[in-house]
Structure formats: C-alpha cells, structure tokens
C-alpha cells in the first residue's frame, strides 16, 4: 500500500514539474510557431542558479530562490528572443537550429561553471517531514509541488482567459496577422511570452531541485519528456500540456518502478498511440 501511495505521489509531483516545463513550451509554440529546444537547458539553468543561491547564502528560502532564478532565466529567454530568434523571423527551421545551438551553449556553460558533480538542493526543513495519515506516510514536499503546479496552472489560466494580455495572446495564437492588423503589439507579445515561458521553466528547475537536484544532463533528461508531453497533449493547448504532464508523470514513474529496463519504451507508448489516431494531440487544434 505504501508503495502505491509513494509512487502515486511521485507521479503527481513529476507531472507537476513536467507541467511547469511543458506549459511554457506550448505557450511559445502556440504563439510563435517555434519549437524552443532551449527549454530543457533553461530548466537546468534555473535549477543551477537556484542551487547556487541556496548553497551560498542563508538569505533565501527555496521559494525566494525559485522566483529569483525564474526572473534570471526569463531575462536569458528574453535576450535569446530579441538577439537571436528575432533575426530569423519567418525561418522556422533556422529558429529551431538556433535554439538547439543555444541549448548546447547553455548546457556546456553550466558544466563549465558548476562542474560535473550534482548539486543537491535541500528540501525546506518545514516540508522535510512526511505527513502521516491513516497509517501511511505522505512525503510533504511532493504534495507541495503538486499544489504549486496547480497554482501555476490556475494563474496561467486566469492570465490567458481573464486578462487583457491573455486576450491579446489568444488573438495572436489564433491569427497572428489579423491580430497585428487590429493593433496588438505582436512583437512585444512575443518577447513577453518567451520570457514568461522561460521564467516558468527556470523557476520549475528550482522547485524540482529537492527531488531531482541540479546535475549535468538534466536538460537532456527533461527536454524529451516535455516534447512527449506536448506531442501527446496537443502542442498548442495548455489543457493538453496539463493532462499530458500528469499522464507522462504516471507512466514514467510507474514504468521506472515496475519495469526499470523498459521504462523508456513504455513512456513512449502513449505518444505512439496518440500520434497514430490523433496527430494533433489529445487537445490540440493545430497539426504541428
């Protein structure tokens, strides 16, 4: 029983982390038609910055570090969008290759700065002890991660559906040219959405820290998961990213626990099935 409880919570927590990664990816893709392959690297960069902040000083708690690191990564994302991707507007292959190049640069820079050894991120002491309920132990931090992911999902939903900025983003997703024609500042919007997506990924990296820690190769571990999530859920759909994240969270966690050798194959089964029957993904409208 305890096994199932723990694994279920692990699945939910991984699903939550994947959502922090995939939501930004799908927002950027939806608006800009750009597959941002730096997303895994930005997640890792966030994790390293957070781990560094927490290691070197006592000023920050985990949440402060997550916010600060998210801001720093958002800045990196904004620079990337303005300085590189802007030069390649309309050339989607060029943009993908440029993001791939930047991903290599970021991940190698992390290796250069922080070295090859994983940097652990301590669980906040108030959340380190499990909650006991009905004779079972529930790891508190994982519950908190799920709550954070739900909060972020809610915030993104409110932002997109209930604010003026969100209405502009939705207009841009639906018809970029028409949105520009009616006076929506699409160019500024691109930068804003890129910063937002990068920032959520960076903060996600810190929040993932106590579970995954910061290590070289974190980017290569996370990017495929994010890709599988968005292909599964529908590449331009936030709901799809949400549902997809939790499906992959469960499949990956239980796959690893029950059939460790073949976890990667099992991981990829839902994606094959969905692509075979619904190439645009579960909730997508757009065929990528």
């Amino acid at each position, binding site marked *: 029983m305890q096994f199932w409880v723990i694994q279920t919570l692990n699945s939910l927590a991984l699903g939550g982390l994947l959502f922090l990664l995939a939501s930004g990816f799908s927002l950027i893709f939806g608006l800009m038609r750009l597959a941002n392959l730096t997303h895994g690297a930005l997640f890792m960069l966030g994790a390293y910055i957070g781990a560094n902040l927490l290691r070197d000083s006592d000023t920050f708690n985990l949440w402060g570090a997550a916010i600060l690191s998210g801001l720093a990564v958002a800045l990196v994302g904004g620079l990337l969008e303005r300085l590189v991707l802007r*030069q390649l507007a309309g050339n989607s292959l060029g943009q993908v290759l*440029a993001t*791939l190049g930047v991903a290599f*640069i970021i991940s190698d820079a992390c290796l250069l700065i922080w070295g090859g050894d994983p940097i652990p991120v301590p669980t906040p002491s108030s959340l380190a002890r499990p909650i006991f309920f009905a004779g079972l132990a529930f790891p508190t931090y994982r519950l908190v991660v799920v709550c954070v992911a739900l909060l972020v999902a809610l915030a993104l939903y409110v932002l997109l559906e209930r604010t003026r900025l969100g209405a502009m983003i939705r207009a841009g997703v639906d018809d970029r040219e028409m949105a520009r024609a009616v006076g929506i500042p699409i160019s500024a919007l691109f930068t804003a959405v890129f910063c937002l997506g990068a920032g959520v990924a960076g903060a996600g990296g810190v929040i993932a820290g106590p579970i995954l820690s910061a290590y070289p190769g974190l980017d290569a571990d996370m990017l*495929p998961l994010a890709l599988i999530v968005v292909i599964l859920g529908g590449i331009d759909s936030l709901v799809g990213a949400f549902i997809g994240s939790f499906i992959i969270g469960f499949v990956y966690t239980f796959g690893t626990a029950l059939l460790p*050798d073949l*976890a990667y194959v099992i991981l990829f089964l839902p994606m094959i099935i969905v692509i075979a029957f619904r190439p645009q993904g579960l909730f997508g409208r757009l065929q990528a």
Partner: protein
Amino acid sequence: MRKTVLIVALLAVLVVFPFFMGEFYINLASQILIAAVFAMSLNLLVGYGGLSSLGHASFLGFAAYACAWSITRLGFDPFAAGALALVATLLLAAFFGVIALRATGLGFMMITLALSQVLWGLAYRWAAVTNGDNGMSIPSRPRLFGLLLDDAASFYWFALGVTLIAFVCIAVFIGSAFGASLQGTRDQPRRMAALGHDVWMVRWLTFIYAGFWGGVSGLLYIYYNKYIHPTSLAITSSAEGLLSVIAGGAGTMAGPVVGAVLVVILKNYVSSYIERWNMLLGIVFLLIVLFVPEGIVPGSRRIFLRLRGASKG
C-alpha cells in the same frame, strides 16, 4: 570535360592519400568518411525531402548496436552481423517513418527527436542487452578478402569504397524520377498530391532509404571504433549530422561532405586544444544559421559565379 578531369584527379588524390600521410591524418580521414555517409543520408531527408530530422542518430546508433550485439551474443562474423544489422535498421526506419511522418515540419522534427531519445534511453537503461553506460565492444575489425582491416590505411580504403558507393547510390536516387518527385513533395506537396503522387509514400520510402544509409554509416562507425556507447544515440550526435548538412549546404550532393569535413576537423582538431566541444558546436550552429544559412557549398558557388561574371564583364 574539365569536370571529369577534376573528378578523376580528386579520386586519385583520395586513393593515394594514405601513402603520403601519417596515421593520425588517415584516421581523421576515415572519421570524415563515416560522418560524410551519415550526413549524406540525412541530407536525403533534410535537403531533398524538406523533412528536418533531429533523430537521425537513431539509425547510426541502432545499426552499430545491432551489429555489436550480433557479433558478441550470436557469434556472427562482422559482415554477417552487419547485414543483419542493416535489415533490422530498415525495419526500424520503416516503423519510425510511419510514426514520424504523421507530421511534417516542426512536428516531424520533435517526433524524430523523441524517438531517438527513446533509443538513447534504452541504450543506457536496458543494460542486459546493451551493457548500459559501459557500451559494447567488438573484438576486431572485419576481414575483407582475407585482409584484416586493422591498420589505418586499409580501413581508410574500405571506408572510401563504401562512401563512394553511398555517394553514387544517393546521387542516382536523387537524379531518378523518384528523386524528382521527392523534391516536388518538398516544394509543392499539395500540387504533387493533385498530380496523383502519393506524397506520404514518397516520403516514407525516402525515410527508409535514408535510414538504410544511416545504418551503413553506423556499421562503418562500429567497425572503425570497435566500440559503441549510448552517446552515439544522443541528440548531440544527431545535431552534428544536421550541422554537417546545413553548414555544407542542404539539398546539394557535395554540401554534406564538405560539412562533415568541417565538423569532424573542428571536433577532433580544435577539441584537442579546447575542452568545450559542445559549446563550440552550439556556437558554430548559431553562426552558420545566422550568417551562412544556405550553407558553404551554395554560398561559395554564388560567390564564385559572381566573381567569374565580374571578370568576364
């Protein structure tokens, strides 16, 4: 006429090259040939099919693993193992093609990337079959006509022969009616469909053909290194191939070869002075995409034509 002379001269230089060079350079040339076969096979998709794959290392890695596995576990000799590996790679390419070609453009790219990451994960995790992080080794290089390809020069000639065969086969494929329809599906898929071509089938067959030559480069790789590690399946490996194609010039026959020369020399030569190959790879990627997006071969051809035009006029 002048072109024929040039080609014959180039071939002659390539053949006698090992007599004048040290072992280091011969080995470097062998590595370039392997990378060139890999890049040419990827160019079929990227350049002629308009299908940018970020998972082409799947075929290189899979063929190499399949070959190593057949040698060590089934006791096959290297060429029989290679034949078996190529058949398996064809099947894998057919299967991956069915999945990846549900999409085109960015979707195709992401699916191929995800598929190759699955193989990478398997190579790492399924240690019972793949030896995991230790990689797989084979005891020796193959024996061709009773001659062990163990020294640098004989392996180079072997690789050169295979590369020339690959070059001719791919050039014939591109020059054929089928190759023309492939380029048609790249430029005008809807018109091609309206003309009665089965666009999906054209792409799928090309995907399999590209997978086959990717597998051949994998065989050269395992014969040369006598070792295969999961990193050969990683995204950097696919990206190096894609960089060769883009840097040299996608959709030209010479482009991927020139790109492979550039990438292998950068990787082997420059990396012996600086440690950061991945960062360099990223920077070169960025520079090529930003400044020479059409690639070196078409770029220099353009400059050459302009210069000749200027001297005549």
